[in-house]
């Protein structure tokens, strides 16, 4: 056995705090190591060529690269050794950057630690076995979760690429938050005018199957072959019959239902179509407000409906779909302003959220685009916008910037002046964050052309005084407290993860960060992939971002899906469990513990019962391996012997 070891400098990233030459020198003393060298950038083209040349020149049969995290470059180097004729599993990485040079300050200790990491990797690689992947057929249908602008874009791009798409949307209509917006920055074009056609495309595309008012119940399978259970929630209206005529809504006597589309700006009916441009344009009963459900009598809608679509007995329905790839575009939520007690959030009617203000500005909103104060329906003259409301606020658990509120505040201030030329807007801000193309020019216009007064400082309190709301904040540039007597206060409340985001992540086996936004594979280089192959991200589900960025990610996720689905077969990862049938005593403990039901029992010819792994189902977790009392089932590439070799290399010397 001849092991070759390549120790990377990573410029100064490693060499700065690790004596790489010394590591190479010590490595040469390890039994089995035939060759060891340190090099500036191992992953560069000459770096990889050097590995290939050394394999040929010195007849190396196992390779170790001591460099960055295997999560970064394992795949790169596996390809390299394969090109040089070795099995790609005759390769190991020692992480001497993320786990060593970047976190330790003492050069001597770091160098020593790096040598240890190399020693363990060498021990492991000497135990490695060649593994070969097998290929399996790919289901070319796609599931998109969330029908906001990001999800719709992904669905349309995949469908235009020729694949069937299943689009699951939680609420009764697609459109997401963008469907609620009035105009959009920085061009101030009408939101629904640009979104509406996309929504119609989604509805009319032959290859898109839309499940509105539905949620993903269960996800089974693996990349290329998922089985999805979808819960179609009861609407109490047979959508195959409903024409969206709206007569039921007109006549329904229950008038105080919470309107989640309008964020409670005005009440709606117990049976309703969320908004005029809704897709699908179908009615739905909200049983918490419907008298038929709460009091047991009414039935007006059933009587009035010309197509007899109403069905009070309807129940949730579960359907199953099979797909090969998944795009998650479940969007975002907004911070509950009751958390901002000092702003009287939720207590004072004239302190509202920015999304409620969008609905007030919107010509098809509940006030037909007239800006009025909720308390007395009078037109406000002085409007105060409070930015970073809850954002960048550790004390309430939102340490991050919500990304787009600076921009929409400028937009709303401009629109306020457009609607009411004699009004005056103020904005309390900490920083104006407007780095996009044309964005800073836009926030400047809000100040220069539209006369919005920007005040640099946070607001500490908002309280009523007569008919006014007093906003008391700091002007840190003046160095003192300022008070404004406002008619209406608009809070730019923080963007949060979508409600239920963690639960959805758990179904999909993808990770989420401490703020419940989904985690991408790599923050720079793989922004729309997840660590679960076959699952992709788009839009605000990954983190707050504006419409252009959401749409960009929707298309990027679709491109990733299309490139994956361009192959008819995928190769599996051969690092899966394997049963040694001679050693197996047929206790079937592994069958019970496998989280993926990947193990079945098999009767051999002699009548002996043993365990058998279904290759395509095994996900490679290794739970079975540590369950088996006989060591009969071994997770390849992480066998007991291989891991113990590492333990011994670290502990026995």
């Amino acid at each position, binding site marked *: 056995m001849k092991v070759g070891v390549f120790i990377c400098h990573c410029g100064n990233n490693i060499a700065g705090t690790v004596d790489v030459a010394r590591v190479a020198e010590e490595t040469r003393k390890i039994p089995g190591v035939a060759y060891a060298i340190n090099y500036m950038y191992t992953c560069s083209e000459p770096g990889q060529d050097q590995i290939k040349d050394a394999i040929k020149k010195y007849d190396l049969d196992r390779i170790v690269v001591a460099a960055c995290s295997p999560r970064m470059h394992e795949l790169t180097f596996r390809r390299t050794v394969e090109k040089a004729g070795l099995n790609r599993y005759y390769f190991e990485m020692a992480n001497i950057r993320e786990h060593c040079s970047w976190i330790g300050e003492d050069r001597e200790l770091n160098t020593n630690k790096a040598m240890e990491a190399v020693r363990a990797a060498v021990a492991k690689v000497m135990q490695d076995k060649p593994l070969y992947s097998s290929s399996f057929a790919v289901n070319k249908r796609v599931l998109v979760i969330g029908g906001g602008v990001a999800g719709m874009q992904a669905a349309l791009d995949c469908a235009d690429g020729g694949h069937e798409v299943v689009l699951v949307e939680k609420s009764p209509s697609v459109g997401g938050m963008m469907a609620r917006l009035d105009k959009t920055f920085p061009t101030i074009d009408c939101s629904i005018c640009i979104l509406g056609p996309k929504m119609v495309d989604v509805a009319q595309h032959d290859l898109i199957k839309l499940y509105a008012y539905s949620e993903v119940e269960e996800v089974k399978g693996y990349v290329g072959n998922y089985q999805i259970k979808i819960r179609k929630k009861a609407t109490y209206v047979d959508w195959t019959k409903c024409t969206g005529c709206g007569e039921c809504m007109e006549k329904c006597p229950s008038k105080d239902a919470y309107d989640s589309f309008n964020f409670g700006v005005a009440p709606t009916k117990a049976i309703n179509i969320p908004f005029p441009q809704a897709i699908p344009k179908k009615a739905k009963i909200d049983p918490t407000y419907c008298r038929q459900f709460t009091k047991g009598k009414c039935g007006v809608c059933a009587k009035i409906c010309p197509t007899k679509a109403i069905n009070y007995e309807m129940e949730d329905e579960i359907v199953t779909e099979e797909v090969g790839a998944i795009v998650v575009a479940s969007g975002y939520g907004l911070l509950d302003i009751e958390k901002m007690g000092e702003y009287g959030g939720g207590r004072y009617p004239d302190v509202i959220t920015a999304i409620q203000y969008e609905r007030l500005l919107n010509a098809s909103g509940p006030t037909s685009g007239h800006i009025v104060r909720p308390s007395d329906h009078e037109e406000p003259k002085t409007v105060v916008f409070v930015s970073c409301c809850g954002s960048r606020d550790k004390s309430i658990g939102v340490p991050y910037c919500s990304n787009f509120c600076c921009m929409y505040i400028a937009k709303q201030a401009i629109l306020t002046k457009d609607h009411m030329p004699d009004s005056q807007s103020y904005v309390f801000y900490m920083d104006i964050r407007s780095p996009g193309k044309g964005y800073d020019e836009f926030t400047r216009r809000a100040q220069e052309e539209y006369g919005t007064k920007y005040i640099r400082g*946070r607001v500490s309190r908002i309280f009523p005084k007569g008919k006014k709301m007093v906003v008391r904040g700091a002007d840190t540039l003046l160095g003192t*407290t300022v008070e404004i007597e406002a008619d209406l206060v608009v809070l730019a409340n923080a963007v949060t993860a979508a409600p239920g985001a963690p639960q959805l992540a758990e179904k999909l086996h993808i990770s989420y960060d401490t703020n419940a936004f989904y985690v991408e594979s790599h923050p720079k280089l793989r922004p729309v992939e997840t660590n679960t192959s076959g699952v992709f991200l788009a839009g605000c589900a990954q983190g707050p971002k504006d419409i252009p960025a959401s749409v960009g990610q929707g298309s990027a996720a679709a491109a990733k899906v299309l490139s994956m689905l361009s192959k008819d077969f995928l190769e599996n990862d051969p690092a899966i469990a394997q049963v040694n049938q001679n050693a197996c005593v047929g206790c079937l403990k592994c069958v019970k513990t496998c989280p993926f039901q990947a193990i079945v029992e098999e009767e051999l010819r002699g009548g002996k019962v043993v365990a058998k792994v279904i290759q395509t189902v095994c996900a490679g977790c290794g739970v079975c391996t540590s369950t088996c009392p006989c060591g009969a089932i071994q997770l390849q590439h992480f066998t007991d012997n291989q891991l113990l070799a590492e333990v011994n290399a670290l502990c026995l010397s």
Partner: protein
Amino acid sequence: MRVINLSTTSDASFIEQVKKESGQDPAECYQCGNCTAGCPYTEFFDYPVSMIMRLIQAGQKDTVLNSKAIWLCATCETCTTRCPCEVDVAHVMDTLRNIAYREGRYTEKDIKTFYEAFLTSLKNNGRIYELGILMGYKAKTLHLLADADLGPNVLVKRLIHFQPNKIEGRDEVQRIFKRFAEKRDNEKRDNQKRDHHG
């Protein structure tokens, strides 16, 4: 406006001292101004509280410790309650006052005198003797007529005792003061020693 030379006047040891004594990291303040906006005393302060935080960040020891603001702060806790960065600002103000007191810097002399009158009464009696405090305070500040208008109401309604209420455990309380004074003296001596050798 004064020009501040940050290369020569920023006192790193002062920043460290505030950090250590208050347990708060001044660097966590991002200068949003919320504390200033909420502080009921901003109109009386010479430097609003967020600016005190900024001056600490800039290591401006003298300006901070000679400010009126640190004496006028009433520890009302508004700033602490609302600071988005979870800085216990009121405790920082308190700490600054402690340091200033130790260094003999009293920019608001009347307040310092009032506090001392209070603590003297506490030390002597174990409890507070309100009339005693008032008399002690007036004798020192010579504000003899301050609050005289309240006199009739206070006395007629017998809001104030004429006799100090002394407790049995007076000596125990006095021991607290004594051990405290010794401890601080020792520290001072140690510090001086260290400065000499260091």
